[in-house]
Structure formats: C-alpha cells, structure tokens
C-alpha cells in the first residue's frame, strides 16, 4: 500500500490549486489500468490532494504515482526543474494506513477536529467505488477509517471546542438564547469581518438579520446577499431595541455603542438579554456597557482568548485521538496481515478436500452403496476433514496477524507440502 500526496503543510495554495480534481473517476481508471496498481482512491479538497494505491510492487507504484502527479494531475504544466519531492509526502503500508485514519478523523486538518473532512473522505471513497477503482482492501480500509473517525468523535471532545472567533460567538449566543434560530441580529458596519461572523450566525440557523451602515448603499448590497434589511446609523436605537444579537464592525475613533445608547435601548426592550459581539478595531462598543444587567459584551480580545483556550484544549484532545488512531491502525494492520494466510489456508483446504474426494471415490468403487448411504458417508468424511482442519486453520489466521506468525505459514506449507500447489498457481 502506498500514499503520495500534498497538503496545506507541504505545498503552497497556488500549487494545490493546480492539482485540485473535480471528477476523480477518469483519473482513477487510468491508475488502475496500470500494471502495478490494483486499487486506488484519489482524495482532493482545498487543503490536500492525495492518492492511495494498493500495489504488489511498491517501486513500480511509486514511479507511476510520481508521473501521475506531474503529468496527469497538474492542470498546468509544471516547470522542468520542479522538484516534486519538496512538496509531497509519501507513506507506505502501516504509515499509509495511519495517515488515512488521521485524515478521516480530522487530525491532519488545518483546523484540527473540523467536521467537514469526514464527509469529504466519504465522497472520495464513493467516487472510487463508483468507477471501480476501489476494491475490497482499500474499501475495508476506508470503512475502518470511518468507524475510527466516529470513535474519535464520540470518545474525545476534539470537535466540540470552536477555535474561530465567529464560532466562539455562536457558541456564546447559544448559551444565552435557547431558541437561537428565532432571534434577530443587527450588523453595524458592512466590513469583511462582520460579514464572516454574520455568515457563521446564518449557518447556525439565525434567519432574521438587519444591517446598518454609514453608507446605505453598501448596507443594501450586503443585505441583498443575506436576505436582510438595510438601515442607516440614525436608526440604531430603534434597531437595538428590537434585536437580540448586535455585531459591531465599523470604522471610527469613538465607540458607536455608548453606555447611554445601550441603557436606553435595554429599557426599551424591557431588559431582555442582548448579546453584543464587538469585532471592531478600535472597539465600537464602550466597555462601560458591561455594567448593564442582561447585556453581554464580548470584544475581539475576549472572543480570541476563549478561542485560544479552546485551541489548547483541542491539542490535548488531539493526543487522545492520536492514541485511538494508533490502536485502530494496529487493528487494521492485523487484518491486513491476516490476508497473507489466505492462500495457504485455501490450499490446505483444497489439498484435504482432494485427498478426501479421491479416497471417497475409491471407496465407493469398492463398496456397493445406495445414494442415501453414499450421501451419508460423503457428509461424514466432510465433517471429519472440517473438524481436523478447524484448529490449525484458526491458529494460522490468528498467527498471521503478527509478523512472527509467518513461521507458522511456512511450517504449514512444508508439513502439508503446499508449496508445489502455490508454485503451480
């Protein structure tokens, strides 16, 4: 098994963009048509492009994959002196298995624990299955990766702690409001940061939004994107009285949300809670408004400090998740290694069955037995053979999962003279 890939750590975005793939089917077909590659899965997201292959010749597969990256994957021709080794990484066997498990569990993501990666991994697997490039071995590996990701998600808290300012703001809003989706939000200013926070709030279910800005045209343009209403700054007091979440992100030397304005608005809204997310620099909300009951103000530093503490906690959770990945990788390695026993076991069974059939044929020729008697003797001998083989076959399967277990396979081949049959095959 071999994996060749590049991600956000190994390659710059302009290079990753060149390698991005929309429809992996035809490319995978080309790969599995190669002599050295039996199965393949291509994984392409904004942060990574990776190809995982099952091969009987690691060196052959390596050459094929390098040519594949350089000539077939790159949308734009790469310069002749371009060194692929500098921007790619390569994993083999257990390391490749471990990497796939880490990717699916979001341990290799730019934001560790992010939830999107599992869906993207499933899409890559599905595409490979649909074009026939993914066979039983890689199929099993990906199923294992999905269950590992599920284990990581349920047994650790890696995905629970948001690390972006916008996600922290949403988390806090949900701690204040029970039915967050039913609340109204006001964005003061139409800058990029405010838009990012607004987009995250919208993704989290918030529907009713209004935007107030110094230049009403800009507010109207942004409002059109979000299906919101646009207002001028002169309507602030009325608007704050009606909304539950205020996001401030507007230029200016002096706070726009003053203690006086906030007090009047709170009185107007009968002291219903108000959540103020101040992401303006300099700050748009006067810190003195913290003194108002039922008003919760978080500025960029407050949100950033929560996000940083979350990032530290995520790192600790990532260590726990890594331990799960190692455990699951060993489990898969055991299964994969046990596959080595399959030819030996099959030939052992074939050999036993051949002896049984021949001896049975001779016996039937000598004895005069009816159909039912022949069937009974046939069943009896089959049962005897199965029972004799049961213990050694189970032991061979078990031992094959360990590296040292190869000795058992070799002894079995010698004792039962199976090498001749393997050679013939």
């Amino acid at each position, binding site marked *: 098994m071999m994996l060749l890939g590049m991600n956000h750590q190994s390659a710059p975005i302009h290079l990753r963009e060149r390698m991005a793939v929309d429809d992996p089917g035809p490319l995978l077909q080309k790969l599995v048509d190669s002599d050295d590659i039996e199965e393949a899965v291509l994984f392409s997201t904004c942060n990574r492009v990776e190809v995982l292959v099952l091969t009987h010749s690691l060196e052959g597969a390596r050459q094929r994959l390098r040519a594949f990256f350089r000539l077939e994957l790159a949308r734009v021709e790469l310069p002749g002196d371009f060194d692929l080794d500098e921007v790619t990484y390569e994993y083999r066997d257990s390391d490749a298995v471990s990497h796939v498990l880490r990717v699916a569990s979001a341990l290799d993501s730019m934001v560790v624990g992010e939830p999107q990666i599992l869906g993207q991994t499933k899409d890559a697997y599905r595409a490979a299955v649909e074009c026939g490039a993914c066979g039983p071995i890689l199929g099993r590996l990906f199923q294992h990766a999905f269950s590992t990701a599920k284990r990581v998600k349920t047994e650790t*808290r890696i995905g*629970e*702690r948001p690390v972006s300012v916008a996600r922290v703001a949403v*988390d*806090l809003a*949900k*701690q*204040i*409001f*029970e*039915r967050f989706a039913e609340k109204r939000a006001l964005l003061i200013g139409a800058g990029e940061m405010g838009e990012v926070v607004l987009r995250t709030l919208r993704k989290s279910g918030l529907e009713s939004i209004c935007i107030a800005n110094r230049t009403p045209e800009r507010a109207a343009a942004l409002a059109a994107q979000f299906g919101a209403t646009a207002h001028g700054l002169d309507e602030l007091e009325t608007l704050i009285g009606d909304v539950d979440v205020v996001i401030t992100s507007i230029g200016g030397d002096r706070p726009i949300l003053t203690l006086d304005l906030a007090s009047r608005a709170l009185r107007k809204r*009968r*002291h*219903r*809670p108000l959540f103020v997310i101040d992401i303006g620099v300099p700050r748009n909300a006067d810190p003195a408004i*913290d003194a108002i*009951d*039922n008003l*919760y103000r*978080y500025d960029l530093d*407050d949100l950033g*400090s*929560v996000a940083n*503490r*979350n990032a530290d*906690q995520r790192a600790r959770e990532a260590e726990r998740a890594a331990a799960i990945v190692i455990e699951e990788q060993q489990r898969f390695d055991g299964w994969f290694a046990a596959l080595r026993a399959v030819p030996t076991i099959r030939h052992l069974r074939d050999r036993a069955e051949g002896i049984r059939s021949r001896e049975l044929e001779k016996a039937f020729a000598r004895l005069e037995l009816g159909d039912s008697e022949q069937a009974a003797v046939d069943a009896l001998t089959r049962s005897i053979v199965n029972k004799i083989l049961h213990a050694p076959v189970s032991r061979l399967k078990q031992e094959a999962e360990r590296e040292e277990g190869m000795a058992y396979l070799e002894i079995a081949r010698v004792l039962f003279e199976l090498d001749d049959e393997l050679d013939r095959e």
Partner: protein
Amino acid sequence: MGVRGLPVCVTALTSHVDRASAQRGQRGFRVTVQVLQWTAAVYLVAGLTAGLGLALETRRLERASVALLALGALLHGASFALLHFADNPPPLTDLRSACSFMAWIGTVFYLILLKRSRLQRLVVLVAPAAFLGSFLAALRAPQGAAPEAATGSWPHAHVLLASAGLSLLGLAGLAGSIFLIEHARLKSKAPLDRAFPLPSLEALDRVNAVTLAVGFLLLTMGVITGMIWLQTATGRPWSGSAHESWTLVAWVIYVALVIARFGVKQGSRQAAASAVAGFAFLLFAVVGLEYIT
C-alpha cells in the same frame, strides 16, 4: 452495586419501619413503604447515571437518567395512590410526607418542562433532591389514622397545595441560582464549562417564570385552604401563630415578586436573584421556623 442491590440498602436503612408496620398489621402502609424504597433507589440510580453521563459526556447515559427519573416519578406517584386507597388513609401533614410530596411535584414539573427546554443536565441536581424526599418518607411509615384536627378535606388540600407551591417555588429558586452562576460566568468572559454545560439563560429564565407563576398560584391556594381549615377547626381563620405570620409575610413578598416579574417586567437577572431570595425566605418561614420554635 447493581440496580437490584440499591433497594436492599434502602430497605436495610428503613427496616425498622417495616417491622413496625408489620406489627401494626397495616399491610397497605407496608406496601407503600416498599414502593417508596424502590422509588428512592430508582431516583438514586437516576442521579448516579446522570453524574456518570456528565463525567463521560455520554448522551445515552443522559437520556437513561431522564428515563429513570420518569420511572421514579411514576413509582413515587403510585406510593401516594396506594396511601389514598389504604383502609384508613393517613394525613400528609407530617414533614416527611410533605417533603416526599414536594419532591414528587418538583420532579413531575421538571419532567414537564424538559419537554420544551434543553434542561437534561439538571437531572444531576433534581434526582438527588427527589431521592432525599422519597428516602425521608421511606424512613417512617404513615402513622395511621389522622388526629381529629387534621381530618377532613381542608387539611389535605392545604398540605397538598402548599407543598406543591413550595416545591415549584423551590424549582424557581434552583433555576434562579443556576441563572446567576451562568450570568456571572458570561459577564466575566470565562470560557464555557464543557464538563458541566449549564442550560441557556433563556431556558432558565423561562423555568423561573413558569414555576413562579404556577407556584405562587398554588401557594396562594394553600394559604387560603389553610385559613379555611383553621376556621373549620377553631372558628377563626387566623390564630396569630409564628408559622402563619411568617408564611403570610413570605406570601406578600411573593406578591411583590410576581408584580415585578409580570407587571413591571424586571430583567431576567433581577428576577433570578428575587426567586432565590424569595425561596430562601419562604423555606425559612415554612420549614426553618418549625425547627427554631
């Protein structure tokens, strides 16, 4: 310890009750005590399951704790039904029975609120309180026939209504306390506590409002039925005892709280603080004073 072992422990602790009841031959009461023992055991398991669910952050255990709490409430309700249909129904005027009834009403109301708000994580607080209420009742069997002064419908109505009111106002106080903790955390900008995430402020405020409204109504009815009971027994609606005076003061305080909450529309934080202070005073007036005097 398995689930089956818990009622055995509760039985051991309350075995003298069984013997006493058996001697009196009050079979109905003995069954009631056994049901209460089971109830206490189920509540205890619910509390432990909820604690384990929080520690391991397992949703399944959280759901199981809610189911166990509901089962406990069902058994608890059955114990009252058994008492009601006993040959010689005892009064519920003693403190243990009243505590048990308060615990039951509080649990049932919490389960009702659970349908509308995300309050599952409070099982870890509600279940132990319910356990204490039922356990206290299981310690001593009802004492048979009621004294003459406590016979009739009014004493029963008074105890039931006042206990239910006290229980719901207690829930309001509990929701208020948690609101104040969460409010202080949000104001201080401390990170969210993932080990024990509290319900949202809005959910707690709703619990506070609903329990205050219903609890005050029940308390008022409790006060009125108490006066009628006194009128029936002594010919006067007011005897001037400390219990009556302090309870009346508590009731007046609650009138002010209800007006502030629903009339003046005070803020959620103030309402939470009022609910905590109001319940502390009520508890002193109804229960604390009994011990002092």
